[in-house]
């Protein structure tokens, strides 16, 4: 009986804590869940085309929000392709051409490996706190779970998406669904996440689905996280341009 009482009290305390959180707290908690000091992950990107799907496997090393290194592992055609992000610069290396190319300007808006994600989508991982002003629009229950609906409007210039709407799970403190809007208010992309697991004390999704909403009949692009490790030591040499050719 005491155990049940303690459980109910604990649950009520947790629920109360979530509901008492300010908008800023929610965004900060969401940023904390999604960002880490460093992370090493192995993932699969499944690009669903009209007729068939392609699976691209990669390993990523990420430090903070400024440094990221990606190596594609399969399929054989893409294996050995590498990408390095340092601050707002991005380089790719293709073993076929044995050349390092800097991707800049408009090329950052191009699709990554034919997926629904652009290089910019991949790069724009600054904390939402820094970029957006958040407004709580309400709460909603989805699949039996409570969510906040949050409208985020850009507070800095130069963001790809000046407005986004997020459905944030009150327990996981993760944006389970996001809608990304153009300046005109037209819906451009959606992203959803599922397969939430507790990894090293934080809730983290194991699958993301990105979809270009302007494409008709688009099945989107899945990003499945197979393994993830937070706050591991990553050698500084990992983020050198010389590493692209190795």
């Amino acid at each position, binding site marked *: 009986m005491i155990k049940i009482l303690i459980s109910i009290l604990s649950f009520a305390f947790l629920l109360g804590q979530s509901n008492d959180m300010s908008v800023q707290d929610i965004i900060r908690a969401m940023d904390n869940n999604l960002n880490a000091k460093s992370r090493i992950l192995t993932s699969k990107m499944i690009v669903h085309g009209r007729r068939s799907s392609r699976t691209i496997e990669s390993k990523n090393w990420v430090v903070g929000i400024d440094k990221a290194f990606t190596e594609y592992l399969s399929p054989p055609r893409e294996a050995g392709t590498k990408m390095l992000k340092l601050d707002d610069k991005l380089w790719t290396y293709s073993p076929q051409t044995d050349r390092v190319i800097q991707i800049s300007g*408009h090329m950052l808006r191009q699709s990554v490996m034919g997926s629904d994600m652009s290089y910019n989508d991949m790069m724009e991982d600054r904390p939402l706190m820094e970029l957006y002003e958040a407004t709580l629009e309400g709460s909603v229950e989805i699949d039996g779970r409570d969510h906040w609906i949050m409208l985020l409007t850009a507070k800095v*210039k130069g963001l790809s998406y000046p407005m986004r709407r997020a459905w944030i799970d009150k327990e996981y403190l993760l944006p389970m669904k996001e809608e990304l809007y153009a300046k005109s208010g037209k819906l451009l992309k959606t992203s959803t996440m599922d397969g939430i697991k507790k990894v090293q004390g934080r809730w983290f999704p194991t699958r993301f689905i990105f979809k270009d909403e302007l494409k008709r009949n688009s099945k989107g692009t899945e990003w499945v996280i197979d393994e993830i490790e937070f706050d591991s030591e990553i050698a500084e040499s990992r983020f050198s341009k010389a590493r692209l050719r190795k």
Partner: protein
Amino acid sequence: MLFKIALKNLLGARLRTFLNVLVTAFSFFLILFMSAMYDGMLQHAKQVTMDTEIAGGAYWHPEYDPLDPMKFEDAHSALPAEIQSLVDQKKAFPVLVSQASIYPGGRIMPAIMKGIPPDQNIVNMPTGALAGHDDISIPVLIGKGMASDTKLKVGDVFTIRWLDADRTYDADEGTVVHIMDTENFKLDMGHIWIPLKKAQTMLAMEQEATYVTYEKGLPTVQDKGGWIPRDINYLVQDMEAIIEADKPGAIIMYMIILALAAMGIFNAQVLSIFRRGREIGTLMAIGMTRQRVVGLFTLEGGLNAVLAAVATLIFFGPILWYFGANGIPLPIDYSEMGMIMAKRLMPIYTIGLIVSTTVLVSVVVLIVSYIPSRRISRMQPTDALRGKVVA
């Protein structure tokens, strides 16, 4: 005197002369026709480019490179004062260029979005069709080729997505208000044209442009403010390069034909000297110098070129005239291959072309006539009279 003898001898050879003249005339015709065709292509490309795209020329933003769409986002600014003054006087019009993604039928396609003033009348483009569509979010003008690629028809609505000056995504619905039929693929393939003011608002680039096209006959402005003037010759140089790249094949072909004609004449000359040894000896014996005999034989050969010119006029003249007047219908649409090509190609015969072709054929014929005739200068009249020819 020498000319009369040469002509008599040449006509006396009948079939041999006829065949030599015919082959020479054919090569004459081919060179003339092919060169006229290339000239026609270039002239047409220049004319179409001037008419539909560049009029008197253009001023480009220093960062603008039409072959590098990745640089479009940096290639825009307010116009320098003197160029702006031309625009204000309606002697020039600005165009704002940007990259966009379009979604015709829900498929994503890259496109070059250009803002143009609907009221311009400097280039021959139906931009007037963009005016007066206050009920439409973005009125769009496209070419026939683009319409075919995107399967869009007049009245169709499709999404356009672009990045504004702050590099923020924006999107809205475009409506096709007109489909233009233009021979200039540069206005058609991969292009969507919208009103300039609309483009400036959409891209948050008020009063800015990427290039300015000015009307014919205007001198270059003094203060270009760093903008780069581009004349007609610069703007058709890619077309010229394509034609130049295609020329060697044609040159090889008509050189082979010309070589065949030259070989026929050469062979006839060699044969004449062998067969007409006694005649050469007699001419020398009655007092004709060796040089004059050599001249006679060279002239005989050289007259082939004159007869060939006449034969070209008689046999091929009507063909040249017909194509010159009616053009040559082309079976395929070259605009998809990136060429400005008329549906009916009109060859252009210039005086320069006719004179240069005549000189080329005549020089070749004279050379091949002279080389075998040189042998005569080494002949003794007594040997020649006995029919002995120096090998």
